[in-house]
């Protein structure tokens, strides 16, 4: 199980497409570390009652490092003591701006892997990802990335594909390749602050498909490259095996993912963590235990989305078994109804078809015994 743990929505960046609104970021408080410990104890109780022996905790925000290095030291020591019988893996999704040697020492000590965002070349990144003063951030982030890498920390990158990338996919790929930076190219979606900036940064599913296909070919045939594009590996292996992995295309992501908001709310996933979406909270840990909330999840309409999708037109689609209607939140964005299939449906059909064709041409699909 993967738990997305958000100790704060506060952030020292003001990215143009942030899934959170600036109001939510400004109003957010830091999670009390003693309450975080109570949550860990509730996780322990859950693990004692379940066959699961392994949990990944993704520390996320806002900017999760704003919670402070002392809080992480305290909670990871506590977890090591209280969850010693279980395999716990910590990772963190950060903007990487606050990393220094002291943080890296702590990450290495607890084997914390980092994901961060860098939107490719400086010209594009600095338009999209600015700090709270509106200043560009590329130089700080690339310097900190190189420091992490030099120190032996595992770091992977997310590129948020926007209108600014149209016509610049080769530059993006070659930059990532030359940095040796594994990444995934995600399409910008319209949520939070992105609502206010769609004219300048938003892309259509068609534009996303075109960019993804161009990027796939650059990566797939590159004789020099030594980097992984995670989305493509996932989609290609999903196509070849018909066993989708990852949260986007699994039959029911709610079997494996949950998010804990700084308010104490248990949410369907990190994307639903926003003060404007509290109606989708499964319950609040200030009022109920995690076990009580988990017992209720399978009875909720959100959990039943997989059934709705299976009974919809999606079931007749060639790609149903490797897509399952796509991301729950993308379905919500499509229509305000989480039972809806992803708004990226038309893009996925093009991308899947293209990747399947390349797999067959290369012999990968036919020689996978």
């Amino acid at each position, binding site marked *: *199980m*993967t738990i997305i743990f958000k100790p704060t929505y506060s952030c020292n960046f003001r*990215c143009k*497409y*942030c*899934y959170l609104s600036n109001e939510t970021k400004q109003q957010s408080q830091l999670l009390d570390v003693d309450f975080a410990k109570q949550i860990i104890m509730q996780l322990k109780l859950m693990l004692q009652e379940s066959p699961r022996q*392994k*949990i*990944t905790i*993704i520390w*996320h925000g806002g900017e999760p490092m704003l919670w402070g290095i002392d809080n992480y030291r305290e909670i990871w020591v506590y977890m090591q003591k209280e969850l010693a019988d279980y*395999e716990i*893996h910590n990772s*963190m*999704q950060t903007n990487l701006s606050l990393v220094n040697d002291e943080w890296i020492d702590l990450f290495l000590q607890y084997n914390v*892997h*980092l*994901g961060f*965002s860098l939107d490719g070349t400086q010209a594009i990144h600095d338009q999209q990802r600015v700090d709270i003063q509106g200043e560009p951030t590329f130089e700080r982030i690339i310097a900190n990335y190189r420091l992490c890498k030099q120190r032996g920390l595992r770091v*992977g990158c*997310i*590129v948020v594909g926007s209108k600014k990338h149209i016509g610049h996919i080769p530059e993006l790929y070659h930059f990532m390749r030359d940095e040796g930076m*594994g*990444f*995934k190219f*995600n399409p910008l*979606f319209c949520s939070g602050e992105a609502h206010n900036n769609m004219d300048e940064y938003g892309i259509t599913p068609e534009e996303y498909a075109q960019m993804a296909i161009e990027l796939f070919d650059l*990566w*797939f*045939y*590159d004789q020099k*490259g*030594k980097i*992984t*594009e*995670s989305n*493509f*590996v*996932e989609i*290609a*292996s999903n*196509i*070849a*095996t*018909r*066993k989708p*992995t*990852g*949260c*986007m295309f699994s039959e029911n992501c709610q079997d494996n*993912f949950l998010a804990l908001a700084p308010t104490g709310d248990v949410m369907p996933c*990190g*994307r639903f963590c926003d003060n404007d979406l509290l109606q989708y909270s499964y319950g609040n840990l200030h009022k109920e235990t995690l076990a009580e909330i988990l017992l209720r999840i399978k009875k909720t309409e959100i959990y039943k989305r997989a059934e709705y999708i299976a009974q919809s037109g999606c079931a007749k689609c060639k790609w149903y078994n490797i897509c399952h209607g796509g*991301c729950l939140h993308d379905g919500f964005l499509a229509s305000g109804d989480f039972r809806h299939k992803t708004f990226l449906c038309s893009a996925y059909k093009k991308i899947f078809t293209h990747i399947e064709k390349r797999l067959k041409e*290369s012999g*990968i*699909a*036919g020689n*996978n*015994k």
Partner: protein
Amino acid sequence: MRNVTFAQTSILDRIDRIKRNYLHVSQYGDSLYDDYSDWVEYSESYDDYHDYLDGGSYLDNVQ
């Protein structure tokens, strides 16, 4: 004939890893889609999956 690229190797590794993690109940077939249709158990957790990939996969899709 071109060499297999790093990207193609990454995909093949991933496919092999999924294959190893399924309990397979019959021989693999030849077609793209029939090969894996009767695998009955998937033992690889999402956590292994996240650990396997090194490309910003720790949180899938939040921007």
